[in-house]
């Protein structure tokens, strides 16, 4: 069966995703603990650093490059002690990506859908 669509979220929004939701997000790999299959991505937003904890069991073995940008696709789950964690189905290194442009593209797509839902809401 096909998995649910992984919708783009900014790293600082992952905490507000409801459990089991499929997400895709990005961040700089700051830490990888292979014995626990856990990686941490980090991104800056509004002068604050945000972390996304990624469970990497399904995508192992992978080549961890500390400091590189990664894209992750997976489901969120709540783990005690850690909080929201993304169980990765896909973890791709995309180092060199233009993050500002990516953010713009995500916002562009969101504003398009918002606009369209607004328009469809009116006649209904």
């Amino acid at each position, binding site marked *: 069966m096909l998995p649910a669509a992984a919708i783009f979220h900014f790293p600082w929004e992952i905490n507000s995703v409801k459990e089991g939701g499929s997400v895709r997000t990005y961040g700089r790999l700051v830490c990888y603990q292979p014995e626990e299959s856990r990686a941490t991505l980090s991104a800056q937003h509004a002068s604050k650093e945000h972390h996304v904890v990624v469970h990497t069991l399904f995508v192992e073995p992978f080549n961890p490059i500390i400091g590189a940008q990664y894209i992750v696709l997976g489901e969120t789950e709540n783990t005690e002690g850690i909080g929201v964690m993304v169980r990765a189905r896909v973890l791709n290194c995309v180092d060199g990506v*233009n993050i500002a442009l990516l953010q713009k593209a995500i916002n562009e797509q969101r504003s398009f859908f918002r606009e369209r839902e607004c328009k469809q809401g009116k006649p209904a």
Partner: protein
Amino acid sequence: MQAATMDPSEEPPSVLWGLDPVFSAFARLYVRDILQMTESTQVPGIYFYNSHPIYKVDALGTVVYKREREDFFCYGVDDGTGVINCLCWKSNLFREEEDDPGKFSALTTVMFHSVSLSETHAGGKHSDVSPGSFNPVTELKKLREAQQKNCRLEIGELLRVRGPVKTSRHQREIMASTYYKVDDPVMAVQIAWMMEIPQLYRQCYDKPPQLQHKAESDTSSLSKATNIIKDFLKQKSVSRFRPYDVQDLLQPLVSCQPQTTSADQEPEAGPSACQQLRQLLKEALELLQDEGIIYRKVKSQDEIYHVTAQDKDLLIAVKDIIREDSKREKYAEKGCHILHILSAVRQRHSLNVSKAALELVLRSLECNSDIVSTSEHHYTVF
């Protein structure tokens, strides 16, 4: 949320589908919309997004699911809005090696022999192929490997797929007519795609299709007006006219427009028919001037418009300018540039000749072989 739920009665008749350019294009829709568009009741396999008839789509997304069969791959493609199954047939090149290695090697041997034969004929050399030279067997092998690499995707890789949409066992899927792996190490392709699609929707898919000619809008009445004037000028070979000469021609466009003023309102609430007519005429004449079809030789109280194509004086002036100046050393080799001709025409003939009008004149002179264009924007006379 259903993207486009439609009454079967609202479905445009199938004879009109071809009028929509989206119908014959690979529509770049979001996967979510591909999954939600309504299927036609008249012809299965045709879908409607926002009344646009669609049967083939173009998608880009991450592979999140894969299954391999003998003849095809089945990839689940996720573009961030939805996930759709893509049925991707293996090409013959792909299968030949797996099923029938003998056939493949036979083919390459034939090719190899023909090449080496021609080599011996040409150079009188022996057919031993040195490592650096062109070897069809290895080249074909490389080609096949490249093809296989582009077709066999793993989860997490990016797939671009085009093809018709099918519904099988209540599931939408794309029957890939073309598909390939996209190398996108820094997400440039994905970002460009994400930026482009909303624009495509706004400019195209979200606009209702113009399957019937509806002439109610102002813009189309303007284009009608200009067409009426153009036809009139052409039929009667008019060379000069004043606005009131053509005003009556536009009368039907104004009077047939729906009356917006109700019986209770005073007539002066909206612009009167006469004013509307004058406004329409003014806009139409401006448009024709912008296109260069007409121009005003002298800007005076008396509004006289010259028809560019019928203005013999202008044609002769342009021809003379090019003939005289092509002889000058400066223009002898390349011919005269259009801007040079323009300024000369303005000095000699009329200050008000527009570039569009001059382009029209140059085109008609060139059609008659009076002048020749040497390169883009350069003209000369032989």
